[in-house]
């Protein structure tokens, strides 16, 4: 199994902040909007360096989405920043009509996604956001795995013309991807080539999948681990090529089973390549307060769950 060096531990939201800061220097059309969460979204640097291109909207997310849509009409590339819950569920109709249906070049950037938001509890732990966003025509959905990849993704989406949902999180997690690697929207990344089971992971679960991969190898299972950083458009080719080889698959995500990565994969397999599929995802329940790692374990989306799912998938072949 390929070795992955942990460069450092950083939060993916800081990767967003760093990417946005770089865009502030390189792309004069990039503007940023925030709904009273500048510090949490790590937007301070962009704000300080580009005060004319930064808009503090206040606690009014619906207005923020509308203003962002309007800014595109003057050729701007707006990046909105707030928690994932308030970036999606709270403003679904605004995104649907003013952004997705109108096909506006808005980048909806969402932090504190999933259970690892932690202590704030279920009111803030949205686990449905990928599903909500991937259902919208015209919408691209991206869920990077670490600081470096989030930074690269932030920079990449500015170059892409069209609505994008960019999902990242709160906790410091291993930062292990190549900082110089260009982010290619829609191209899944084969992290480790294997032959016995395909593990498709997204977001924070990519590192968990790598940890699981080491344990699986010791059990005699050689996993192919793929980082699916783009949920939509979905890289069917890479995924099908892998499953054609391994004949079974596990999906892993910090998201609800309904509407998540696993659901996309299930649809694909049912249509094109029926295969044993095990889904590591939250199963039709809300989260609760607690530490991120504890919650990942309690709700069945931690390393041990990926290992167990891979073993089940292999047995079902």
């Amino acid at each position, binding site marked *: 199994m390929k070795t992955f060096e942990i460069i450092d531990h950083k939060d993916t939201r800081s990767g967003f902040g760093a990417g946005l800061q770089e865009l502030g220097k390189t792309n004069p059309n990039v*503007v940023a909007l925030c709904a009273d969460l500048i510090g949490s979204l790590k937007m301070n640097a962009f704000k300080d360096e580009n005060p*004319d*291109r930064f*808009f503090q*909207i*206040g606690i*009014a997310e*619906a*207005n*923020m*989405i*509308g*203003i*962002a*849509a*309007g*800014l*595109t*009409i*003057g*050729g*701007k590339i*707006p990046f909105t920043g707030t928690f994932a819950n308030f970036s999606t569920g709270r403003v679904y*109709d*605004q995104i*649907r*009509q*003013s952004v997705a*249906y*109108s*096909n*506006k070049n808005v980048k909806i950037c969402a932090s504190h996604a999933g259970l690892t938001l932690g202590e704030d509890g279920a009111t803030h732990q949205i686990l449905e956001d990928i599903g909500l966003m991937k259902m919208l025509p015209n919408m691209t959905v991206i869920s990077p795995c670490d600081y470096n990849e989030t930074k690269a993704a932030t920079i990449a989406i500015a170059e892409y013309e069209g609505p994008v949902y960019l999902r990242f999180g709160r906790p410091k997690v291993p930062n292990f991807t190549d900082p110089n690697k260009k982010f290619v929207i829609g191209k899944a990344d084969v992290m480790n080539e294997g032959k016995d089971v395909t593990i498709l992971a997204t977001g924070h679960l990519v590192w968990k999948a790598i940890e699981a991969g080491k344990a699986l190898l010791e059990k005699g299972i050689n996993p192919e681990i793929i980082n699916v950083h783009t949920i939509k458009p979905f890289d069917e080719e890479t995924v099908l090529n892998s499953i054609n080889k391994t004949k079974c698959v596990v999906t892993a995500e910090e998201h609800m089973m309904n509407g998540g990565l696993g659901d996309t994969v299930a649809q694909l397999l049912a249509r094109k390549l029926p295969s044993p599929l095990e889904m590591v995802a939250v199963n039709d329940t809300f989260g609760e307060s607690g530490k991120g790692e504890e919650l990942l374990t309690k709700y069945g989306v931690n390393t041990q769950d990926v290992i167990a799912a891979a073993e089940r998938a292999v047995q079902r072949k």
Partner: protein
Amino acid sequence: MEVAELQKISSQIRRDIVRMVSDVQSGHPGGSLGCADFFAALYFEIMDIDPAKFEMDGKREDLFFLSNGHISPVLYSTLAHRGFFDKSELATFRLIDSRLQGHPSPAKNLPGVRIATGSLGQGLSVGIGAALAKKLNGDEKIVYTLHGDGELQEGQIWEAAMYAAGNKVDNLIATIDYNHKQIDGDIDDVLPMGDLAQKWQAFGWEVLKMDGHNHEEIVQTLTKAKSMCGNGKPIVIIMETIMGNGVDFMMHTHKWHGSAPSAEQAKEALSQLTETLGDY
């Protein structure tokens, strides 16, 4: 443009509205008829626009957003007569494969439409964004929006109102179609909104009022509003209108908010509206 000319345009727009909704037996004639005079003045006298060269980014021209998208017939007729597209296309309103969707959308690339509206309350935010982009671009043109009075019951409107005043978005002129009616009846019966002028003033806006059926007053008030731009405050015009204006049996009732006249009723309505620019 002489008032008499604007009146002719309004009459033709009203004919188009009646024919469009009657032909497909769907659409929203009441509010559309009530805003025909405003649209004629705005598009033929006030706004600086270039219909022949429609560009989505709208740089160096005035912009208009119809937040109450259900009155699309009045917008489509106005755009056609102003030269954004051929008036023959009005015959496709609400039909399959048409660019003239029930509610306006840029999805079908209809010149003159820059954002989808219909789900209410979103157009003021969009207008603010477009106005902010103009400021960033050093573009001194103005952004206009129109809203239904019932639409003001949507919370997003007041988020936007607070933002625009607090951030001195002073290249923005919003107009409220104050016909006092909404689908379920009189506004005062559905959800009373109190004193609208005081509400907007309290939110920090310059407030003007006008009679939405007096072309001279509409032009004067919009011209005054333009002259007030750049003074640190957004501007709202509360425009008194009569739903269904121009067709006697459609006036002063919410009944025609979203109901189409039958062929016979349309014939009667058209007998009250002079054909001035040629029917589509």
